C-alpha cells in the first residue's frame, strides 16, 4: 500500500517528467500488475498459509492440550519414577549385598564344585567298579539261586533225617539202663529217663522242675544224710569239672523211702563255655557189691586154703633144718634155708591178702586199748634196725614228750607204721636219710611224719598209690618184694580210726608220709566197712 501513495504524489509535481514517468509508470504498472498478480498469489499463499496456520494453531492448541496432559502424565510419571528410583536404590543396595554374598557363595560353590568334580571322578570309578560288581553279583545271584534250591532240598531231607535221629536219641536216652537225670543251672530236674523212674519210683510228671537234691535224698554209708552243699550235683553246678562217685558208695532214697547202694557220675552240661546244667548217670550197685563180697570171700577162703600147704613146707623144712631126719650138709642147710625164707614170704603175702579181705568184708576186728604210739614206733624202728644199718641209712627221729596214750588197736596201728617205715627203708637207696617225728596238733590229733630221701613216687602215679595191688613203675624193677597192698591196708586202718594218711613226693628226691590220728575218734566212723556190707545185704 505504502508504495502506491508515494507514486501518486510524485506524478502531479513533475509534468514533463509525467510522460517518462507515465512510461516508467506503465513499466511500474506492469511491474505492479505483475506484483499485484504476485501479491494475489502471495495473498493466496498467505491465505493458504493463514489457513494452514489456523489449522496449525488449532492443531497447536490441540497439541498444547495434549502437551499439558502429557506434562501432567509426565509429572505423575516423574513422581512414580522418583519412587521407583528409591526402590531401585534399595534394590540396588540389596543387590550389592546379595552380590557380595553371591561372591562368597560363588567361592564356596567353586570349592564345592571342585570337590564335586573329584567326587564325580571317584563316583565314576566307583560306578565302574559297581558295574563290575553288579555283573558279578548277577552271576553270583544266579549261582545262589541254584544253590538255594539244592539246599532247600537238602534241608528238607536233613530235617527228616534229624527228626528221625532226634526221636532215636530220645528213645536211646529213655532206654538207657542206668538212671539218667538232667538238671538246669539251679539243679531243677529237666529230664529223667525210664530207668530213673523205675529205680527211684518217681514219675517224670511228678518231679520235673523240682530240685533233684530235694526230691532224691542221698545217704552215705553210715546212713547220714548228705547235705546240699556236699552233694556232687551241687559241686558240679558250682563249677567243679567232673565228679565220679565210684569208690565212695552211697545210697539213694526211693519215693517209698527204701534205699539202694548207688554209684554215680555227674558232669556239667556246658554250652558256649558256660555251665547251663548238669547230667547225672547213676547205677544200682547192689549186684556189684554182692559180687565184690563174694570175691572177697573167695580170696579169704583161698588164702586159708593156701596156708595149709604153706604150713607143710614150713614145718618140713624146719624139721629138716633141725636135723629131725638126720644131719644135713652145709649146702643142704643153705638150700633149706632158702626154701624156708621163700615160704615165709609166701605166708606173709597170704596174710596180707587176708587182711585186705577182712577189711573189705568188714570182719577186721578192732581191739582198742590205750596205746603208746611213741613206744610202738620205736619198736617198729628197732625191727628195721638191721636193714637200716645194712643200707647205711641215717635215721633220725623226734618224738614230742606231750603225746598222751591213744585208744586204738595197737596191732593195727603197728601195721600202719610198719608199712610206712618199711617202705621208707625199702625205697631209699644206700646212704640215704629217714626222719620220723611225732607231734600233737591242736591238742586233738597226733601227727606223724615219715620223711625219706628215697626214690619218690612219679607224679602221674601218685593218685593210684593207695589203690589195691598198685606199685609205682620206678620201684617195680628195684624191689620185687612189695605186694602193692601195704598202703591200701594202712590207709584203710587209719581212716577206720578216724584219721588221715597222705603224702608229698618228688621222684628221685623222696617222700613224706603224714598220718594223723584223733585222740577221740568221731563216733560215726565206727566200723565203717562192716556196716557197708551189712547194709547192702538188707
Amino acid at each position: 500500500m505504502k508504495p502506491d501513495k508515494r507514486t501518486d504524489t510524485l506524478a502531479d509535481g513533475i509534468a514533463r517528467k509525467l510522460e517518462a514517468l507515465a512510461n516508467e509508470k506503465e513499466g511500474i504498472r506492469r511491474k505492479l500488475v505483475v506484483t499485484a498478480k504476485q501479491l494475489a498469489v502471495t495473498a493466496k499463499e498467505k491465505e493458504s498459509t493463514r489457513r494452514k496456520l489456523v489449522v496449525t494453531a488449532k492443531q497447536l492448541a490441540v497439541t498444547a492440550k495434549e502437551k499439558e496432559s502429557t506434562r501432567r502424565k509426565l509429572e505423575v510419571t516423574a513422581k512414580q519414577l522418583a519412587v521407583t528410583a528409591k526402590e531401585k536404590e534399595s534394590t540396588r543396595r540389596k543387590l550389592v549385598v546379595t552380590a557380595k554374598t553371591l561372591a562368597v557363595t560363588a567361592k564356596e560353590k567353586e570349592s564345592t564344585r571342585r570337590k564335586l568334580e573329584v567326587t564325580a571322578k571317584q563316583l565314576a570309578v566307583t560306578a565302574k567298579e559297581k558295574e563290575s560288581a553288579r555283573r558279578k553279583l548277577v552271576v553270583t545271584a544266579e549261582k545262589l539261586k541254584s544253590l538255594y534250591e539244592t539246599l532247600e532240598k537238602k534241608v528238607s531231607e536233613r530235617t527228616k533225617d534229624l527228626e528221625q535221629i532226634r526221636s532215636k536219641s530220645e528213645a536211646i536216652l529213655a532206654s538207657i539202663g542206668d538212671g539218667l537225670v538232667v538238671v538246669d543251672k539251679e539243679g531243677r530236674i529237666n529230664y529223667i529217663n525210664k530207668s530213673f523212674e523205675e529205680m527211684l519210683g518217681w514219675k517224670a510228671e511228678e518231679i520235673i522242675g523240682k530240685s533233684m537234691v530235694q526230691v532224691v535224698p542221698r545217704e552215705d554209708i553210715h546212713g547220714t544224710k548228705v547235705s546240699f552243699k556236699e552233694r556232687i550235683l551241687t559241686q558240679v553246678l558250682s563249677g567243679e569239672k567232673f565228679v565220679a562217685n565210684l569208690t565212695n558208695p552211697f545210697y539213694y532214697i526211693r519215693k517209698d523211702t527204701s534205699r539202694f547202694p548207688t554209684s554215680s557220675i555227674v558232669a556239667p552240661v556246658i554250652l558256649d563255655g558256660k555251665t547251663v546244667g548238669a547230667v547225672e548217670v547213676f547205677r544200682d550197685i547192689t549186684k556189684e557189691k554182692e559180687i565184690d563180697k563174694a570175691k572177697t570171700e573167695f580170696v579169704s577162703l583161698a588164702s586159708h586154703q593156701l596156708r595149709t600147704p604153706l604150713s607143710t613146707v614150713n614145718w618140713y623144712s624146719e624139721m629138716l633144718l633141725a636135723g629131725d631126719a638126720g644131719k644135713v650138709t652145709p649146702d643142704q642147710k643153705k638150700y633149706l634155708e632158702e626154701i624156708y625164707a621163700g615160704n615165709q614170704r609166701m605166708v606173709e603175702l597170704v596174710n596180707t591178702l587176708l587182711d585186705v579181705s577182712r577189711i573189705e568184708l568188714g570182719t577186721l576186728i578192732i581191739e582198742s586199748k590205750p596205746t603208746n604210739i611213741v613206744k610202738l614206733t620205736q619198736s617198729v624202728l628197732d625191727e628195721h634196725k638191721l636193714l637200716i644199718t645194712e643200707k647205711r641209712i641215717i635215721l633220725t627221729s623226734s618224738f614230742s614228750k606231750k603225746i598222751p596214750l591213744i585208744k586204738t588197736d595197737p596191732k593195727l596201728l603197728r601195721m600202719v607204721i610198719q608199712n610206712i617205715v618199711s617202705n621208707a627203708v625199702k625205697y631209699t637207696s644206700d646212704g640215704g636219710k629217714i626222719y620220723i617225728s611225732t607231734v600233737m596238733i591242736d591238742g586233738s590229733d597226733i601227727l606223724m611224719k615219715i620223711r625219706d630221701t628215697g626214690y619218690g613216687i612219679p607224679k602221674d602215679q601218685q593218685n593210684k598209690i593207695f589203690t589195691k595191688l598198685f606199685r609205682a613203675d620206678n620201684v617195680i624193677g628195684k624191689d620185687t618184694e612189695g605186694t602193692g597192698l601195704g598202703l591200701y591196708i594202712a590207709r584203710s586202718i587209719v581212716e577206720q580210726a578216724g584219721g588221715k594218711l597222705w603224702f608229698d613226693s618228688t621222684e628221685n628226691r623222696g617222700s613224706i608220709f603224714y598220718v594223723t590220728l584223733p585222740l577221740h575218734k568221731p563216733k560215726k566212723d565206727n566200723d565203717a566197712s562192716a556196716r557197708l556190707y551189712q547194709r547192702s545185704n538188707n
Partner: protein
Amino acid sequence: MKDKLKMTKTILVIEDERPLIQAIQTKLESNGFIVVTARTIDQGLDYLENIEKIDAIWLDHYLPGEKTGLDFVAYLKGPKSKWAKMPIFIVSNTASSGNVRSYMSLGVSKYCVKAEHRLDQIVKDLKAFLDDSEK
C-alpha cells in the same frame, strides 16, 4: 624108769592133712610124747572115750564132716563133760578173730596159726603148759 613113764604124756592130734599129721606126730614123738591121731571130730571123740589116758588135745578147726573144732570144744567144755579140764591147743590156719575169740571164751589153752608158728615152738609151748599144770 617109773618117773619117766609117769612123765610121758599122750596127745590126741585131730588134724586131717596127712603131711601135717606126719610132721606133728614125728615132732611130738621126738619130744617124748605118745601120739594118737584122728582125722575127724567123731574119730577123735571115739579115741577120747576109749583111750583112758589122754593128757591134751591138739585140734584143727576145719575138719572133714559137718563138725568143726569149735563144735568139739563146745562139747568137751560143756556142763556135764568129764573133759572140761582137758588142755586143748588149737592149731589152725583159720585165724579169724571171731574164731579165736570163740575158742578162747570156751576155755582152750592156746590158739596157734600154723603158717605163722614154727612146729618146734608149738611143741615147746605145749610141753611148757603141761609141765606148768603139773606143778
